[in-house]
C-alpha cells in the first residue's frame, strides 16, 4: 500500500483506504453465494390437474402442487426469444389454483408487437397446460394477459 505524501494525514489515510484492496472479500463472496443458494424464496403452491380436470389422484385423492418458484423460471424460459424478454411474471393464486398470469414484456424495436404478444401468450398457455395440467377453470385467452412495457433497440435481454 503506497500512501501519497500530502501534508494532510487524514487525506493521506483516506486515499490509502480508498485504494486498499478488499482483503478477504474472495473468501466472503464464496461464503455469501453458498449461503444464498440454500435460501428458498417464499412462493405460493399451485394445485395440478390430471387429464380429466381433477386435482385428486389415486384412491386416496392425493394432490400434487407445484411451487411458483418452479413455474416462474419455466414461463420465463418459454417466453424469452431473441426479440423479446419477460420483464415480470405475476402468477395469481386463488384457493391454490392458478387464477391468472400477467406477463410483462420488453420487445426489440421493429418487431411485430401483435405477433409477439400472441406468441408469448401461447407459450405461457403451453407451459401452464404442461406443468399444471387440465384446469378446466383456467381459460388461457381470458386469464393470461400480456403487456409490452418497453421496446428497445438491440438485445431486449440486456436492457
Amino acid at each position, binding site marked *: *500500500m*503506497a*500512501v501519497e505524501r500530502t*501534508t*494532510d*494525514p*487524514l487525506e*493521506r*489515510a*483516506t486515499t*490509502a*483506504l*480508498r485504494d*486498499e484492496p*478488499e*482483503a*478477504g*472479500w474472495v*473468501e*466472503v*463472496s464464496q*461464503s*455469501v*453465494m453458498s*449461503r*444464498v*443458494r440454500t*435460501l428458498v*424464496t417464499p412462493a405460493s403452491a399451485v394445485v395440478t390437474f390430471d387429464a380429466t380436470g381433477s386435482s385428486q389422484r389415486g384412491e386416496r385423492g392425493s394432490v400434487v402442487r407445484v411451487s411458483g*418458484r418452479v413455474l*416462474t*423460471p419455466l414461463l*420465463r424460459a418459454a417466453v424469452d426469444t431473441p426479440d423479446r424478454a419477460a*420483464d*415480470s*411474471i405475476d402468477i395469481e393464486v386463488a384457493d391454490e389454483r392458478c387464477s*391468472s398470469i400477467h406477463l410483462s414484456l420488453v420487445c426489440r*424495436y*421493429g418487431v411485430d*408487437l*401483435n405477433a409477439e*404478444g*400472441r406468441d408469448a*401468450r401461447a407459450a405461457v398457455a403451453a407451459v401452464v397446460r404442461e406443468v399444471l395440467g387440465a384446469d378446466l377453470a383456467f381459460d388461457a*385467452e*381470458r386469464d393470461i*394477459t*400480456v*403487456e*409490452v*412495457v*418497453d*421496446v*428497445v*433497440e*438491440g*438485445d431486449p*435481454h*440486456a*436492457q
Partner: protein
Amino acid sequence: MRRGVATWSFRVAGRASRLHDVCVLDDAADDVSDTAPPDHVLVRRVRLGERSAFDAIIERHGPGMYRFALRMVGGDRTDAGEVVQEAFISAWKNITTFEARSTLRTWLFSLVSRRAADLQRKRRPTPVSDDLLTVIAPAARHDPLQEVMDKELVAALQAALAELPHQQRAVWLLREVEQMSYDDIATTLVMTPDSVRGQLHRGRKNLAERMAQWR
C-alpha cells in the same frame, strides 16, 4: 383483472395503452449497450428466478459493501463478512419488493449499514452523539514521529472512525471512500441531504482532530 376479454397492451415512456388488435410503434428506447447487464436487468432476472443474476449482483457490489462493512465494524473481517452476508440474504429475500425508488447500490449499502448497526449494538456500545464523543480522548497508541508507516496511518484512521457515532461514520465512509453523492447517501441512510452535509462536516472535523498527531 379484466375478465372475458383477451387483451394485451404496450407502454412506452410511461404512457400505457391497452390494445386489442392493432399496435403501432412509433417510439424507441435507449441505445444498445455492449457492457455487462445494468443493475435493473439483473434485478429483473433475479425476480424471474435466475439465481446466477444474483451472483452477478454479489460480484458487482460485494467488494464495495465489504469495504464499507469492514470500516463500519472496526476492521474485523469476520464481522464484516457476517454483515455483508446478512445484507445479501436480506436483499435476496426482499428483491421482489425492491421498487427502484433508490438505486440497487444505495439499497444494498443501506442494508449493510443497518446490519452493521445491529451487530454493533449486540457486541459493544458506541457513542450515540457528538456530545458523548467530545469526552473521548483521541488515542495516541504510537509515537507518530517514529512510526509514520502507511499501514499504521490507516489503522489510526480506523481507530478514529471507530470512535465516531454510527451515522457520522457511515456518512463519512460513503462520501470519502465510496464517493457517493449527497443524495445517494441520504437515500442510503434515510436522512435528508442537509443532514448528510452536517454529519459529514462533523465527521471530517472529528477525524481531522484525531489524525492531526500524524502531521
